[in-house]
């Protein structure tokens, strides 16, 4: 009986300490478990890989700091992949107030300062120059209200000045970007439902394909939209990010986290078993008495 009693009454601080130790050790010393690529991530990779010269991509950050670590791997690898495609033009936007800082970090991670410049926004990413191949429009308040406005009145809702106050109308005019229907692909990194709003106002309105990379709690809802054909592709949470890093040959943060992710999930399974053994062996019998 005392064994079951011990199992039923393990102090939760032991659980916390074990998770902390396991995560820290496996992040420091990953052993590299094999990873299976899911069909939806493969579709995402193929979709980005099929971008043609002259295509316009909106990359939206609907991301707060809470979800950033989960999606950092997806942001880095997917954006790097888009920028590797020749002739593709990119507009960065943000629909979460914290997102511009993370967006700048991702740009800096993937690029280098252009000659003669010492600060944002003048970074060159995989040979693509700021103001020539891509622009960063920064944060727009209103989330779905702004996306609806962008769909209806693209140029006025986007504005002529970027996040840093630089006039980018030349970039928009020279690439003939006038209306929402000119957008060929939307990629949204979400801890809120930015892609859902792009889907409602861009995919349903103009047929523009939307790709979502989302945090874990949003995966169930995103899969419904993906299976219904509303999203062109999805990259679910950190697992999807790791798969994408593997596919895009961009080894990094998400792949490193997979070992800790695996082991903590198994620890969770072990706790579920321990909890039930303790419950049946001690607590339930106690109640029956």
């Amino acid at each position, binding site marked *: 009986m005392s064994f079951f009693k011990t199992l039923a009454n393990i102090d939760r601080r032991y659980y916390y300490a074990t998770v902390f130790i396991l995560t820290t050790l496996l992040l420091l010393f990953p052993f590299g478990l094999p*990873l299976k690529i899911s069909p939806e991530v493969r579709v995402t990779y193929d979709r980005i890989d099929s971008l043609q010269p002259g295509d316009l991509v909106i990359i939206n950050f609907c991301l707060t*700091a809470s979800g950033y670590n989960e999606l950092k791997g997806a942001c880095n690898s997917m954006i790097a992949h888009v920028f590797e495609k020749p002739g593709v033009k990119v507009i960065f936007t943000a629909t979460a107030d914290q997102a*511009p800082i993370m967006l700048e970090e991702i740009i800096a991670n993937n690029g280098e300062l252009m000659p003669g410049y010492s600060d944002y926004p003048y970074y060159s990413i995989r040979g693509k120059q700021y103001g020539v191949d891509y622009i960063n429009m920064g944060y*727009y308040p*209103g989330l779905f209200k702004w996306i609806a406005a962008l769909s209806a009145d693209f140029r006025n809702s986007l504005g002529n000045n970027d996040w840093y106050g630089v006039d980018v109308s030349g970039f928009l005019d020279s690439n003939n970007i006038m209306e929402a229907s000119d957008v060929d692909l939307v990629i949204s990194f979400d801890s809120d439902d930015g892609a859902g709003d792009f889907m409602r106002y861009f995919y349903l309105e103009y047929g523009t394909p939307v790709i979502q990379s989302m945090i874990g709690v949003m995966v169930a809802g995103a899969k419904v939209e993906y299976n219904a054909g509303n999203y062109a592709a999805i990259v679910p949470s950190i697992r999807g990010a790791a798969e994408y890093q593997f596919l895009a040959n961009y080894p990094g943060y998400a792949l490193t986290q997979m070992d800790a992710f695996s082991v903590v999930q198994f620890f969770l399974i072990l706790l*579920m078993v321990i909890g039930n053994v303790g419950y049946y062996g001690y607590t339930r019998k106690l109640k029956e008495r």
Partner: protein
Amino acid sequence: MSFLKKKEFYVVLLIVVSIAIYIPYFFRVPQELINLQNWLVDTTVIIGALAVWVGFITSTRREVVKIQRRRRGWFYGIVILVLSWAMVIIGIGVGKTNVIFELLQRAFVLPGDSTIYAIIVFYLTSAGARAFRVNSFESGVLTLGALLLLLKQAPLGELLTPWAAPVAVYLENNVAMAATRVFSVSLAVGSVVLAIRLMLGQEMALVGLVQRVVRRDEEQ
């Protein structure tokens, strides 16, 4: 300007705005109505931005009262006031891309937000041991589903229990999907019903024009 105080004015406004927003979304209408819809949608973005100020002022008033009356946690009220006003003053004073403003974001907002989210994993493990107890048929099904999904999700699970992945994928794509679609479809139908009620002037509580009557048994 006395009409501004009348409830009827807001009811008419609500009906007109609802028609101008919903009708062009579902039907083909003249360009003028689409322009009006676009203008209204643009306006909501500005109103939304102003609403942040309302929230900020309300928060300041609440914290000031808390500090004055030395209510529990009043010290944290000072922290909230100092940090929030610092963000506003520095943000407006030196600009959103200024190094000091970005430093405040990087030093306080981002680490705080990340930490709170990361703490969830500890509660999750504790909940795994305490909440997933098989004490009925329903909880047994729930626990089995959770186990299968955990095995499928982790690369180690795919390696050790390859049989779990197809079952978990079936559960995700069929059972979970059916349940989630119920919510999606209900939400969509509910939105259309709400639109119709707004256009008919039947949904006044939503915009605070009338108070919802709470029955005594509902309160309890």
